């Protein structure tokens, strides 16, 4: 018994010594090791437009961050295309190897936030005095929110504006629409420009391309979904008015399906475009490639009878992994990307999106910022900033995309006259509600 006790106490001492040694080694290493922070990003533009320098913004942010934190290395896996990014990220999350901070695909935001893959930032924000929510455009910040809590920060954004073929309007003697134009003005101009210019009996000049019911809904007061009740309101008079308006516009074209080729050839007066597309195709060389002999400019979207001249805005989000080992540093990096004026300036200069910080856009506007290459001209960033202040984010609840696809199909049938408008929308509402509440 005594021998055993002695043996035991000897073992105990040995254990304590080993533990102490391990702890010492660990703390020594912890004190000397460099911290590693991983970022999940993709190459190229988030806005489905060509991009020459895919990692410009991220590289700017990382360089500046590493200068401020000399003991931290920030890395990312390069070469992931935007279309592969969703799956790549899902695989990383499933394997538990997701980066500390990563760009968040819109469609997954809701799911990842509710399953606890990304971190709720509320507490971090509450502790961080340096975080200024007011400096963001409201809609883009709102986009990273779920149930009142922020889960992601905006990186860049792209509002949708109306492209106007200035050359065509001048030729027709029509003035550029003002910022407060309405559906009626829009319809009137479309009606005036839709004609047969070469006298071959077929229409060859049109009012609009790609203007769809979703834009109409946004500019007519919205209210298509209520995510909290998981309900949609396709049969409401507002929505019916929107679909009807698009049908009227289509009717002007007498069954002709306008193509993007016709837009490029300068035969279409209006086309809704995102700011990213505007930024891409406005300067040389894309301008020359795409629009050979027309001058284009952008205005706000026309306002519906019960809406305003607002723009839908897409936002690129960045989120923090719930499992990150360095939440403090990850948060600093997120703030660097999303709030730092230098990085946000890089968004304006090197990416296709628009900065999410109002001050950055306004100071660039003051500096008469232009594309800076041959054949370019200055952009009215001040006007765009005003658009952004009122812009509206997309709905992003879990089944949103599927619901929109269902609606798109049904409304196409209504356009084609296969279904009566009112009844078709009623049926659609029922179907989508059943899907959402399944």
């Amino acid at each position, binding site marked *: 018994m005594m021998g055993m006790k002695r043996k035991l106490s000897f073992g105990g001492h040995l254990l304590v010594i080993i533990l102490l040694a391990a702890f010492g080694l660990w703390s020594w290493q912890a004190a000397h090791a460099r911290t590693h922070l991983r970022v999940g990003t993709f190459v190229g533009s988030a806005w489905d437009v060509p991009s020459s320098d895919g990692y410009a913004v991220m590289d700017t942010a990382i360089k500046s961050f590493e200068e401020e934190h000399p003991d931290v290395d920030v890395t990312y896996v390069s070469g992931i295309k935007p279309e592969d990014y969703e799956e790549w990220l899902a695989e990383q999350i499933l*394997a538990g190897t997701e980066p500390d901070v990563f760009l968040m695909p819109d469609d997954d935001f809701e799911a990842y936030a509710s399953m606890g893959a990304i971190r709720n930032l509320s507490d971090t924000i509450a502790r961080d005095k340096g975080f200024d929510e007011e400096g963001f455009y409201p809609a883009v910040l709102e986009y990273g929110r779920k149930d009142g809590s922020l889960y992601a920060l905006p990186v860049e954004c792209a509002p949708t504006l109306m492209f106007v073929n200035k050359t065509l309007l001048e030729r027709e003697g029509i003035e550029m629409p003002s910022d407060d134009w309405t559906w009626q003005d829009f319809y009137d101009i479309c009606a005036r420009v839709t004609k047969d210019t070469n006298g071959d009996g077929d229409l060859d000049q049109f009012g609009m391309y790609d203007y769809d019911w979703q834009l109409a809904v946004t500019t007519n007061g919205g209210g298509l979904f209520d995510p909290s009740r998981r309900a949609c309101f396709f049969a409401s008079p507002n929505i019916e008015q929107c679909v009807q308006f698009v049908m009227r516009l289509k009717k002007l074209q007498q069954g002709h399906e306008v193509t993007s080729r016709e837009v490029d050839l300068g035969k279409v007066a209006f086309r809704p475009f995102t700011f990213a597309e505007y930024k891409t195709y406005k300067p040389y060389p894309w301008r020359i490639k795409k629009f050979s002999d027309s001058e284009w400019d952008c205005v706000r979207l026309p306002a519906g009878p019960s809406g305003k001249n607002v723009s839908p805005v897409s936002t690129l989000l960045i989120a923090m992994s719930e499992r990150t080992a360095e939440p403090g540093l990850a948060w600093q990096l997120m703030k660097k990307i999303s709030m730092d004026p230098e990085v946000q300036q890089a968004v304006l200069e090197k990416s296709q999106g628009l900065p999410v910080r109002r001050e950055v856009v306004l100071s660039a506007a003051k500096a008469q910022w232009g594309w800076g290459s041959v054949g370019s001209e200055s952009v009215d960033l001040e006007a765009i900033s005003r658009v952004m202040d009122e812009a509206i984010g997309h709905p992003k609840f879990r089944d949103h995309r599927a619901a929109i696809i269902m609606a798109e199909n049904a409304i196409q049938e209504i356009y084609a006259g296969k279904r009566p408008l009112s009844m078709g929308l009623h049926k659609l509402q029922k179907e989508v509600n059943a899907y959402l509440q399944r």
Partner: protein
Amino acid sequence: MMEIDFFLWRSLFKAKSLAGRLHQLLWLYNGMVVVLFSGFYYVTQHKIIEAMTAHSFLQALPVLPLPADEVVALSWLSFGVLFVCGRIYHRQDITQSGRYLALLAETIACLVVMRTLSLSYDGLVLLVVADLMHRYDGKNTGGLLVGAMLLLFFLADYNMLGFLGGVEPFDAYAAYYNSSVRGVLSALKSGLSSVNVVLFALYLVMLIQNKHQEKERIQSLNEQLESANEKLRLYAAEAERTAETRERNRLAREIHDTLGHTLTGLAAGMDACMVLVDVAPQKAKEQMEKLRDVAKHGLKDVRRSVKKLRPDDLERLPLREALTHMVKEYADTTSMEVKLSIEGWPEAMRQDVEEVIYRIVQEGLTNANRHGHATKASVTFQMEEGRLTIAIVDNGQGCKEAVPGFGLRHMQERLDLLHGSLSCQSDKGFKLEAVIPVGQGAKEERHD
């Protein structure tokens, strides 16, 4: 000596009963199931990632699943903890609080394993319950057993937990495979649970049977003990009788050797005296003197013999101390509680009176223990008008009719010689009362 039997293989061979072996089989089986399930999650997760369907897989889940490596590591580790806690729980040499702690740790480890395996296998609950049952001894632990069981089943209920926080369902993983594989998987899943339930039921049956056998064994042991006791009692009585006979023989021999010898000598001497008294009176006188010496010598011998018959204690000690010593010794050897109180004590007593008193107390206590099966007895001495009263009261069964046995009769006889009296009554125990006159005369006679 304590032996650390944390290792299954060693304890497998240590278990003697069938229930014990089944218990270990249950452990082995559940360990295998944990390995199987964690392996399934591991392989499926890797397959999903290889097939590049992680995105749609995640979309179908309500919560973030644990990474495959963590599932394997955590489930094995916590199963190991579960096992070790189970072993500790079964140790004989741990305190009650230590046991509760082990049980708590076991419960927590069980929940961790089940959570890591997405609650797709709840057989571990039965394992913990089996552990509890194994240790179940019927006192106080009944409530604990039921409580732990309810808690485990409550927490292990998939739907309940799904409602509270949500777990990733087994089906989401199974959905990766085609329908035929899915069928096999779900059959395997329910099959594994069923086998576990069968093993558990078998274990319970064996356990009950074991307990029953144990009970029977104890009963038969009890009976054997009883009969051995009875034999021992008979032997004791026999031995006593033998001792008595031997004592009687010794007494006879003593009388024969001393008194007989002296008396024979005296008788012969007296015959000679009778002849001499007329012929030579002077010679007869001398002879008579010699005879007186012989008689005196004989008396001395008798005294010596009587002394030899006295109890040892009485020989060595005064009566009071001898009584105290005897009572204490008796109480020690029989574990009967005996109280001796002396309220009155005569100034002086003859040796034979002392001996009778000593014998009465001895016999009374022996009776209280042997016939009355008493656990307590008190001996009280009182002095009143030249009469010493000895009362021996016990809390034994007494006897319905005080039939004077051997012991009582002896006592009576001894007391008669001293003109004393004996009375006894039996009512909730036995009360024996002896009264002995101890007069003034005692003093003179003692000097003799």
